[in-house]
């Protein structure tokens, strides 16, 4: 066709589309993170919370705690109590216990998740062991606190929350520094 662009130009443009779409595939990763943060989807909680809130004594929310190990993760990992009752705005604390029963030093990463997911944006952690990695020597046990505030603006229909942690073995990726215990 006389009015069509040259073959070379057309193919170049199509190849550019291919490259652009390949990049777009990777761009979906940050886009997804931004969307999750903006809409509080997927139960992903935010980072460390620095604010303070006035306690709302007229309302109570049950907060349940769950702990899960991924496959092949040998640590003992559990919350001290299964649940607590929290007033929105108040700072609450729960202690999780982790123990490395193996004879090797290991590192671990806990990943939090909130259900129902529409409450995730209203659950603020002021301190959490999930912000860092844990390194435990053989047989070592630690108590790990998590402090949190349930937002006063949390939707009224949410009367109970579940905070769940999944513990991952990341020894391979973050080799723990072995300490000389001296026997």
């Amino acid at each position: 066709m006389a009015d069509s662009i040259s073959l070379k130009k057309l193919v170049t443009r199509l190849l550019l589309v291919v490259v652009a779409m390949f990049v777009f595939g990777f761009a979906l990763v940050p886009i997804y993170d931004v969307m999750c943060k903006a809409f509080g989807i997927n139960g992903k909680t935010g980072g460390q919370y620095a604010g303070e809130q006035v306690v709302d004594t007229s309302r109570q929310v049950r907060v349940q705690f769950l702990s899960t190990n991924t496959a092949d993760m040998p640590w003992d990992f559990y919350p001290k109590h299964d649940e607590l009752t929290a007033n929105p705005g108040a700072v609450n604390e729960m202690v999780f216990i982790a123990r490395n029963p193996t004879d090797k030093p290991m590192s671990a990463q806990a990943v939090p998740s909130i259900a129902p997911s529409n409450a995730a944006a209203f659950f603020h952690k002021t301190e959490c062991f999930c912000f860092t990695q844990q390194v435990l020597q053989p047989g070592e046990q630690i108590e790990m606190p998590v402090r949190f505030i349930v937002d006063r603006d949390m939707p009224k229909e949410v009367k109970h929350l579940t905070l769940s942690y999944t513990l991952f073995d990341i020894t391979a990726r973050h080799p723990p520094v072995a300490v000389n215990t001296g026997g």
Partner: protein
Amino acid sequence: MSAVIDDHGHADHAHGPAKGLMRWVLTTNHKDIGTLYLWFAFCMFLLGGSFAMVIRAELFQPGLQIVQPEFFNQMTTMHGLVMVFGAVMPAFVGLANWMIPLMVGAPDMALPRMNNFSFWLLPAAFLLLVSTLFTPGGGPNFGWTFYAPLSTTYAPESVTFFIFAIHLMGISSIMGAINVVATILNLRAPGMTLMKMPLFVWTWLITAFLLIAVMPVLAGCVTMMLMDIHFGTSFFSAAGGGDPVLFQHVFWFFGHPEVYIMILPAFGAVSQIIPTFARKPLFGYTSMVYATASIAFLSFIVWAHHMFVVGIPLVGELFFMYATMLIAVPTGVKVFNWASTMWQGSMTFETPMLFAVAFVILFSIGGFSGLMLAIAPADFQYQDTYFVVAHFHYVLVPGAIFGIFASAYYWLPKWTGHMYDETLGKLHFWLSFVGMNLTFFPMHFVGLAGMPRRIPDYNLQFADFNMVSSIGAFMFGATQIFFLFIVIKTIRGGAPAPAKPWDGAEGLEWSVPSPAPYHTFTTPPEVK
């Protein structure tokens, strides 16, 4: 039509095909490459079909009889991968190679050498993929959707080969698609405006754009898997700050347009065949073009309907539910156009028409079960049951595959120069029709009753329907060997086909003799 060089034999200038095996290895002729694609697709159809036979044999009765669950998982995975990437997509590319230059009056595809390369990548890709079945630890066992972390953290060692195979298939598809776009946009005969193009060409143009848009996303997706597995990244691993749900978003951003890639060319083929045998022009040509474009556009904004249960917000569920249901509108336009084309036509029911009419009816059934699945709250029940299996087999088997069969019978006279045996063709149709419905219709019932997919064993209450499904599957499978026989018989002989074997047919492809000479339209035809 313009002069076609029939007689040659000059040593200086080869007009016919080269001799021997190297003809096929080195060929840049669109008809040769189309033939290669079609044969390759048929081989893969039989291979993927034999995997399906293993699945149905195991599901013939409850309990574990024939294969271990691990192997069963590999069979469901490989069946899906081979059928999608090895059978349906290459078959349509083969039809495109053969027919698009003939339909637009082009001498060949626009990029013949790239055409050769994009075909020969496929055998390499599938050799790589199928070889994983013989490795220790087995082949891919995570379903054709290869959700992370099943396909990353918990995958067999062979997953790397799977990733490279997908890369090769993707490169092949992208090159094929670029070739189709370039041919259609640059090599049309004078006078062939876009809105005069046959509908098969139109649907393939749109399909090619879909391929160019989404195959790179799939390549990105498997590249991320590769990096997670070997280079310590955490795209899909929650432990490192990634998210397995992200995988599903990326995959289905490719995956949903992909299912239209597998059906749009069939829409086009059926839109060629029904007017021929109804002896009426296609009803609503322009609306067909716009409906196809709308379907393609909508396919990009509905992906999360595959993920209603992963925990997306209510607003998201509603958006994806309504957007999905919206697809029924352009699809309905198409179905009504086909029905209107047949309305008061002088219809005859040769084999291509039988397949085409069955396509319209059975694809609509698959479309309706798709609408049921689109309803988010209902999908919570149907998710991962045999109802889903019934749904997508109803759109793929009598949809894509019947579309390919219809095309094959319709154009076989043009390809081989012989008429196929009409009695045998009709027998093939009826056996396929009965076998296919026997296989997949009962799956609706067991699915609604709660039978989960991808499991080698099932509750006793599903036993009778599963046995019916298996018998239907064996019947359908055996029938396709019969199809091979029909095609070989047609190639070897049969009544000589005239240039235009169907009296209602229209289009440039019927202006060249049958079989189509090795080189056609070396001088472009004039289209009025």
